[in-house]
């Protein structure tokens, strides 16, 4: 028979458990984290001596898995310069990172440095909750602001996270990502054409390719995002880039439901209707489409410069930025921004890390992994495709600049835009209906 003591213990355990269950019953969430101890402003790159004063520290870093090659070079260089710091870096897939970084940065043992993602869902939420440190001083000290140029707005937020596109710089990102036009040089030569640089030339090339029995445009849209990226080459050619950026960053009165965007949607649907786009695109993954294009299918592939990993042969393929009609604007942005936690107890070491990632010196390391740095780099060597990527990036940044990504506009825009675009391309919804839905999503978000 159990003793009285055992009964009491059991009862105590049950009560404790019950209490834990009921503990749920207080309002969830805390107040906005007050900006912790006044951030140490820096005026020059952090020196090893400053960091040495911290004693032995471990710097906890969360990064996208796409950063691994770059980090394999950078982390040893950082640890050599700051010998009292050990970097503990964790790589996550893009989806995992963006889904969990907010909670991680809010936890008691938040990483000192983490990558976020521009737009309301991740960076906006991080700023709003006061979880990351403004980096204006760091951007100046590491010559980052000048290299970023006008596109720095994608990293700026008001300090309450309520507006995007102006305010303090909250993140820094060393590489430029953009949508461009991959073309098959040999097939264009067979058609007697050069690389198209205007919308008319592009559509003429599509028609010629179709007439010659080729697939004009290879598309894989199973991820739903790829058609939206492809669309940007049309939209960027027809609508002024500044208007689109204002709309994406939520400027008062901005409107996406304009004639030029309607025309862009109608033209894209026409491409599909005329058989310019590879069949079954909604059921094909973009990676499979890029691989098919790299192995010789089709004449054009419109996609991010990151597909140069798959479409790597610069002798066979060319990469050009957006069309001259819109001064080379297409969807694009810097890569995932690096942030410094406002809770870090080693913020100088963290700043030194983010500063080094974005410094002119690291640009060469980044270029060595075939990513396009924002900071200027020496020539691309003998890799023709990488040279094309560098050219395209420079052309776009000097031209109208990137459009950013449509889905940054609101936290539900990805679904609204991508799902709707699939409907329009399939001829199940009119361009007007989609533009209405897109704009009312935007209005709802900004009147909340």
């Amino acid at each position: 028979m159990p003793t009285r003591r055992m009964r009491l213990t059991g009862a105590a355990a049950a009560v404790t458990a019950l209490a834990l269950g009921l503990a749920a019953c207080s309002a969830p969430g805390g107040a906005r984290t007050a900006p912790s101890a006044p951030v140490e402003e820096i005026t020059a790159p952090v020196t090893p001596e400053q960091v040495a004063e911290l004693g032995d520290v471990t710097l906890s870093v969360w990064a996208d898995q796409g950063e691994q090659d770059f980090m394999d070079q950078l982390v040893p260089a950082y640890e050599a310069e700051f010998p009292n710091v050990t970097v503990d870096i964790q790589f996550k897939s893009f989806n995992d990172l963006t889904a969990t970084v907010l909670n991680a940065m809010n936890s008691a043992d938040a990483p000192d440095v983490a990558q976020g993602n521009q737009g309301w869902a991740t960076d906006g939420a991080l700023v709003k909750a006061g979880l990351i440190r403004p980096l204006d001083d760091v951007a100046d000290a590491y010559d980052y602001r000048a290299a970023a140029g006008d596109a720095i707005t994608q990293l700026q937020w008001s300090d309450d996270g309520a507006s995007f596109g102006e305010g303090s710089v909250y993140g820094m990102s060393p590489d430029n990502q953009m949508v461009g036009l991959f073309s098959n040089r040999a097939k264009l030569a067979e058609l007697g054409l050069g690389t198209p640089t205007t919308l008319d030339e592009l559509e003429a090339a599509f028609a010629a390719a179709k007439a010659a029995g080729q697939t004009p445009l290879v598309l894989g849209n199973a991820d739903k995002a790829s058609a939206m990226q492809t669309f940007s080459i049309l939209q960027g050619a027809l609508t002024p880039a500044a208007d689109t950026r204002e709309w994406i960053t939520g400027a008062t009165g901005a409107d996406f439901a304009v004639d030029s965007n309607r025309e862009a949607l109608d033209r894209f649907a026409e491409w599909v209707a005329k058989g310019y786009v590879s069949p079954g695109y909604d059921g094909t993954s973009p990676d499979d489409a890029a691989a098919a294009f790299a192995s010789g299918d089709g004449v054009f592939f419109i996609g991010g410069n990151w597909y140069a990993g798959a479409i790597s042969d610069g002798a066979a393929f060319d990469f050009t930025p957006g069309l001259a009609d819109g001064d080379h604007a297409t969807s694009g942005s810097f890569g995932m921004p690096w942030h410094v936690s406002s809770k870090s107890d080693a913020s100088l070491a963290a700043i030194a890390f983010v500063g080094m990632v974005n410094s002119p010196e690291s640009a060469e390391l980044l270029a060595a992994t075939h990513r396009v740095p924002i900071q200027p780099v020496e020539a691309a060597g003998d890799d023709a495709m990488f040279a094309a990527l560098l050219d395209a990036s420079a052309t776009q940044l000097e031209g109208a600049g990137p459009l950013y990504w449509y889905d940054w506009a609101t936290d539900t825009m990805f679904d609204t835009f991508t799902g709707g675009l699939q409907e329009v391309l399939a001829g199940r919804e009119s361009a007007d209906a989609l533009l209405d839905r897109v704009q009312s999503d935007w209005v709802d978000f900004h009147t909340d």
Partner: protein
Amino acid sequence: MTTLSPPRPGPDPARPTDRAPRRRPFLRRYDWDAYLYLVPAFAFYLVFLVRPVVESIWIALFDWDGITASEWVGFDNFAGVLADPQIWQATLHSLVFVVFYALLPTALALVFVGAIARIRVRGLAAFRALLFVPYILSTVVVAISWRWIFAESGPLNTALRAIGLDGLTRAWLGDFTTALPSVGIIGTWVMFGLAFVLFVSGLQNIPAEQFEAARLDGAGPVREFFAVTLPSLRGEIQVALVLMITAALRNFDIVWNTTSGGPGTSTTVPSYFIYREAFVTHQVGRASAIAVVLTLLIFAIVGAVMWLTRDRDAAAPRGGNR
């Protein structure tokens, strides 16, 4: 009586013991010491199951981004969810999945079991194991394999072209009309093995005499199936349906890894919105409200299925079922 003591001798163990002539107060009627053994398991259950459930229901009553201070909104989240046509559309898709994930595999498995009830199958164990493999495979692996099968240049279309049905070929998962049934077929393939294994084990518990008797009475295979096999498998069918319907209604991984809800919104499911609201738009209160509504829906449908498939012949034992 404690659960550990040997059965008390006597003609009627259900009668109150003679050693306690006076009627015990209610709380003394059972020996509560026995429950002490349940405390560890119950505490675990409370902390890791009851608490999160209670917490979800509680959070559903707030407007909360998951981080900053929340605001009490009462049942507004529920009202918003129930008024959202996208959620209703997603629920409708889930009900279609019930057909593909539960009804179809059950029907197919019953046909198979009905067939093997009359014949001796060599290597049944191997056959059974093979059919069960889809159920234990990681759903991501399943989804990627089927994405390939359904692709524009995949084996399904190749086969169709080989027999001259070129007109039917398409990117099955990328087509507005075929995406939903295509994802459903994947579920049928996964769930068939589970139903089959359950039914085969049930089949082996049916006394051979029953089949013999049926045959002596002149029953053909169809009559035998409906008179012997089907009624004897009632318990297994109930278990299979409950498991498979639950899987159908909370389906997320296969949809996410094949179509991400597309094209358009043709394959959205409620779980997709729970994920989106919780992790993308940071409306944790609303995500919890969808989760609560989905749970209630699952309870309602599973409850209805259990009631429909209850054992109508057995006298209901006093004090509830079992």
